[in-house]
């Protein structure tokens, strides 16, 4: 069948799988909400401080939640042999990998993006910053999935790859974290944020083009 059909079939398959394993998918989003709601309890009744910390808190929690969900990207396919079959397809593996990453983002990144404005309000983030928060998440969470995919592909063959995965992936997440939380910060004080958003967009497009290829090669390495 054509490449388009294969791309759509993989997205469809992963969405059905996600729907049938709801609890696994709900994990990262619960983690995200829990961490953000626990912060005010820990910090105490200091609205000014919370408001100042809100962009960082939301973004760090989103980043950790995204990392928590990474392992599910290829793990079950690796364990039951579906990954082997995917690599034996006559279609370019990088494109199939991109379909998997997109489906993964739909079930992990998108929910984060949808609850983030609520959590922003909860931490007292000014309303003018909410649109920027959503925008940074829209550009940033796909980058987390794309870069994370390389790390997962490299470590999926290892029995205990969790620690190595975070060491591999976290340094690459830092630019996203810096520019995204800075943009939300600036928006909260009413400053222009187009520079940060442009940089995030360029990081997004770069990783969209560059991440699937090493992911495909890393998967081939892990499978042997």
């Amino acid at each position, binding site marked *: 069948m054509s490449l388009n059909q294969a791309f759509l079939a993989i997205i469809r398959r992963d969405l059905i799988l996600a729907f049938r394993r709801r609890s696994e998918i709900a994990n990262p989003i619960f983690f995200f909400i829990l961490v953000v709601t626990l912060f005010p309890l820990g910090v105490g009744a200091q609205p000014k401080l919370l408001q100042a910390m809100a962009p960082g808190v939301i973004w760090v929690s989103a980043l950790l939640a995204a990392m928590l969900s990474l392992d599910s990207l290829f793990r079950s396919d690796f364990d*039951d042999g579906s990954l*082997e079959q995917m690599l*034996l397809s006559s279609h370019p593996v990088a494109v199939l990998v991109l379909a998997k990453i997109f489906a993964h983002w739909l079930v992990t990144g998108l929910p984060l993006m949808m609850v983030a404005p609520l959590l922003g309000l909860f931490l007292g983030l000014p309303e003018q910053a909410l649109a920027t928060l959503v925008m940074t998440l829209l550009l940033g969470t796909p980058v987390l999935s794309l870069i994370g995919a390389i790390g997962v592909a490299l470590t999926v063959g290892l029995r205990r790859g969790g620690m190595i995965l975070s060491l591999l992936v976290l340094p690459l997440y830092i630019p996203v974290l810096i520019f995204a939380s800075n943009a939300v910060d600036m928006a909260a004080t009413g400053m222009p944020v187009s520079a940060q958003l442009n940089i995030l967009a360029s990081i997004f497009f770069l990783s969209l083009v560059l991440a699937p290829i090493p992911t495909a090669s890393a998967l081939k390495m892990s*499978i042997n």
Partner: protein
Amino acid sequence: MDNQLPTLQAASLSCIRDDRVLFSSLDFSVHGHQILLLEGQNGCGKTSLLRILCGFREPDAGVVLWCGNPCHRSAFYQDMAYVGHMDGVKKELSVAENLNISLALGSQGAMTVDQALEKVRLAGYEDTLVHSLSAGQKRRLSLARLLITKNKLWILDEPFTSLDKQGIKLIESIMLEHVQAGGMIVMTSHHDLAMPSADIQRINLSQCH
């Protein structure tokens, strides 16, 4: 190209694993209408050889040729199908959903999904989740994948595992049909093949040092 019989050749293949030479300077050639049966004790490199043929492992020396050319991804992968130790089916998906995914990854073969399920005696299970199938049924499902996609070379790693006697007979008859239609099979099996009419080439890997 199509009227020509496809051939799979291996030239002086070696495989070294953890400083142990599993096999070295292994040469063979399989063409259409033929079955290559790999034999040998456990751990003698049968699965490793199959994985080299699939392209999952790089041989430590030697090359694998498909129709005279080095195995290049898409051209070779269009013509081959692999069923390994792992069934490669998703537990949470239904039987038909699993086969449709395989179909999307490959190209449409001689049989439709329904016909293939009929053939492996899984008709009526289309909407059953693979989770609730028995081990033998799962195996038959993964072998059904061979029928729905277009391919000439089947690489089978212990295809008879967890199949009952009738299941084995059924798979042997499917294999025979494939070979008679010009296809070829490279396989390992502990079970001796009861296919007197087929052209079976045997290689014992325990003796290939």
